[in-house]
């Protein structure tokens, strides 16, 4: 089912300019917000050489590189990458393992980065690798996906990486995202419905029981830090100085925004009150500065992007392309949903960045590669079929 288009046939193919435009817009918007959020702190911190544009410059460099790579990838037939599926998996495992080596880098107390000249977060690479690996695996299994064995193989194949990301880099949220991507891809590939609802229901019930159990334990000494986080989630004002601190600061920022916000650059919470203001918490700053209107606009942009992904996936020339797009869709959707859920204290606090907007070079670079893949799949759509 390979599709090899010759050069001249490209003219008749589809290119999703609207998606490209929205991505550009989000990247540009993200850069503005990163500058707005980080400039004050960056100017007074020696970590950023007292340069207010420190984070902006680093992110802009990564974004420009990302755009170039995206355009290149979008011009390459996506089937080209199929052969790298296993290598990608293995490389991810090695890179995550390397975090333990002297190449590993610690930032803000978390050892999640590799120093390869520039700092690289292996978990971000693993997300892309997992999308490619699972798409390839599912296509190779053909009807095998319908068997129980196939189902569990797909479901469990990301487990090693998830466990490594969780245990080695102590990054549960990335592990959950990688696993979530796998579940979503499996959901699309498998004819099953019931098992997914059962799984979903099971996870929800388990979470409920855990939360209930934690609230019943009266002694704080018995609680680990994740349990304390859950208590802080239920009532952030019970521990405003420690576990509930970031959440509360985030809520202060969001609440102060009101309908129209304080205006671009006018955030108070970014002045050192809200930790990770240019990173995981950037959505709070958007809310504070641009208000409900700005927040709704950003969310709408993501909804449209997801919709574009769906259109491309549904019209993909083959299952491999469709699954690649579904993987990317899952990745972005999960991160956006979890990020907004965290900053609004809808779920317990955990570090998840907002795609395209949050500060993070590796993240934006690999997201752009993913978009490149999606655009490449989009090219495979013959216009007349639309």
């Amino acid at each position, binding site marked *: *089912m390979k599709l090899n288009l010759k050069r001249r046939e490209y003219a008749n193919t589809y290119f999703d300019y609207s998606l490209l435009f929205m991505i550009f817009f989000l990247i540009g918007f993200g850069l503005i917000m990163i500058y707005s959020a980080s400039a*004050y702190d960056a100017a*007074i911190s020696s970590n950023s050489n007292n340069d207010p544009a420190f984070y902006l410059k680093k992110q802009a460099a990564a974004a420009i590189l990302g755009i170039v790579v995206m355009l290149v990838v979008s011009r390459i037939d996506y089937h080209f990458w199929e052969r790298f599926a296993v290598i990608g998996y293995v490389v991810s495992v090695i890179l995550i393992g390397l975090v333990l080596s002297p190449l590993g880098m610690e930032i803000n107390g978390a050892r999640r980065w590799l120093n390869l000249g520039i700092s690289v977060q292996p978990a971000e690479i693993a997300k892309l690798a997992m999308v490619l690996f699972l798409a390839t695996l599912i296509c190779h299994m053909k009807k095998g996906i319908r068997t129980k064995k196939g189902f569990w193989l797909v479901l469990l194949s990301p487990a090693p990486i998830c466990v490594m990301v969780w245990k080695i880099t102590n990054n549960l949220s990335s592990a959950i995202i990688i696993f979530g991507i796998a579940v*979503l891809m499996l*959901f*699309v*590939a498998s*004819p099953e419905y019931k098992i997914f609802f059962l799984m979903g229901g099971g996870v929800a019930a388990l979470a409920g029981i855990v939360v209930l159990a934690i609230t019943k334990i009266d002694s704080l000494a018995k609680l680990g830090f994740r349990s304390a986080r859950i208590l802080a989630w239920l009532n952030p004002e019970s521990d405003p100085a420690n576990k509930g601190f970031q959440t*509360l600061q985030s*809520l*202060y*920022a*969001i*609440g*102060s*925004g*009101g*309908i129209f916000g304080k205006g671009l650059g006018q955030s*108070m*919470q970014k*002045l*050192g*009150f809200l930790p990770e203001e240019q990173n995981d918490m950037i959505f709070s700053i958007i*809310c504070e500065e641009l*208000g*409900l209107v700005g*927040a*709704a606009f950003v*969310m709408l942009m*993501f*909804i449209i992007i*997801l*919709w574009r*992904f*769906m259109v491309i*996936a*549904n*019209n*993909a*020339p*083959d*299952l491999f392309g*469709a699954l690649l797009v*579904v993987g990317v*869709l*899952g990745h972005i*959707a999960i991160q*956006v*949903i979890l990020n*907004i*859920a965290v900053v*609004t204290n*809808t779920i317990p606090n955990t570090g998840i960045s907002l795609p395209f907007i949050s500060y993070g070079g590796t993240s934006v670079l690999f997201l752009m590669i993913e978009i490149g893949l999606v655009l490449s799949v989009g090219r495979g759509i013959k216009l007349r*079929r639309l």
Partner: protein
Amino acid sequence: MKIQTVYRKKIFLLTLVCIFALLVLWIRVVYLMVWKSQYYSGKAEDLHQRERTIAAKRGRILDRNGVVLADNQTVCTISVIHNQIKEPEKVISLLSKELQLPIDQVRKRVEKVSSIEKVKGNVPEEIGKRIKASGLSGIKVDEGYKRYYPYGELASKVLGFTGGDYQGIIGLEVKYDSILAGTPGVLYTTTDARGVELENYGESRKEPVSGQDLYTTLDYNIQMYATQLAKQAMESKQAAQVAILVMNPQNGEIYACVDVPEFDCNAPFTLPESVQASIGENPSEKSRQNALNAMWRNHCINDTYEPGSTFKIITAAAGLEEGVVQVSDTFSCPGFIIVGDRKIRCHKIQGHGIETFAQGIQNSCNPVFITVGQRLGVDKYYTYFEKYRLKEKTGIDLPGEASTIMHKKEAMGPVELATVSFGQSFQITPIQLATTVSSIINGGKRNVPHLGLGVLEEEKLKRFSFPCKSNILSPEVSHLMGELLTQVVEQGGGINAKVEGYTVGGKTATSQMLPRGSGKYISSFLGFSPTENPQVMALAIVYEPKGIYYGSQVAAPIVRQLFENILPYLDRMCYNK
């Protein structure tokens, strides 16, 4: 070739679920940003705003004629703001030069990474202005106030002083703190998380309300002159302490309250050299505090003493009021009197012989007063003691008034009654004695002695009111007492207090300091003028005079000198009109 429909359905479903989740979150965002907006933005504002109190200007303390006894000086606090300093070397050299601080010390402050670092407080205004005029960025000059007492030691134990937060510590400063203090203002500034103030956000302030000026009953001239007399007496008699109380017997206003040695209100924590030497170079905190408390102690109010013969005024008044003695009654003094199994001596060993009651007062004859006491009996005597309010505190508007130390009624036998009758074996404060005698000679009005006169309200003095209990004594007896005491000065033991051109009444006293036989005495004289409707009363107490220690010779001349000067002055001032 298109992918199978089953995939498309699933992809569609998946996308819908994701979009649905985003919509749910959108509702959550709307809830936070619309419904909870006020709550969270209020909380955030609390977090961003810092409150800085603005000191209120403390009210001044003035004498009754408007002479300022306690004032405020503008002083500056010099601080540096680390991240606003652009030329650190210039800042360091300027501050060390102007503030006369070692370069290293200033450098430490300037180079410390903190939001704001205080370099020096209590800097005189002109230096603060010079520093401000330099225009170097990063230096903050905050103006504040410092208490300043223009006359240093004058009335120190009455005025008191203020502490680091500008709060009263002793004296009128603490008693009238609520009037003097005012209400501090608040400056709300917006700061970042490190506490650095943000200039663009402006600041709102609640202005401080200055404290009210306190007018006192003191008269600067009388206080000044009484202080001089006390100092002279202390020097010439090599006394330990000299206290002089001058008051208006009609209404309890205190014109002067002197207790030398005084201390410097501008340096209340500096002990005199002699005291410092006696407690050593590095005294313990406790011994230093004790020494300070002793220095601040106002003997007129905070300490009791055995009044001695001046108390015979009370015994006489009680006897006359009760009718157990008449002015013309005759007594015989052989130089002693037997009470129970004891022989109590008169100060004149050979005795006063036959004398009338009036002469007994002039002679300050102990057996006469013991006899009067015996005629009253314990019950009656005790009733008068209480009726004259000797057992209560006077209620003077100064902190730390000492209580009367008196026998319990049940414990009062004939000997106790006899000794109390001539002013021994119990203790009262000088202010209690002066106040009680005032009520005896003013027609029976018991006033609360006081120093607070009032505050200005719309340019007019609004006087404080103090309770006054009248008729604790009949006007007739009061009048009679005035006459009898005038005779004491005219022809009795108080002759040294006689002032040409004025009628003066009074009573001397010489009491032993406890323990008896220590050879230490307290000489005192209580005088008033004129006899009719007395306008001023003075009580002079000399503690531990060397050499001659009789009240008639040590204390009476002090009151005479005082009266010679202040009586004409008071005639001019007309304080009772």
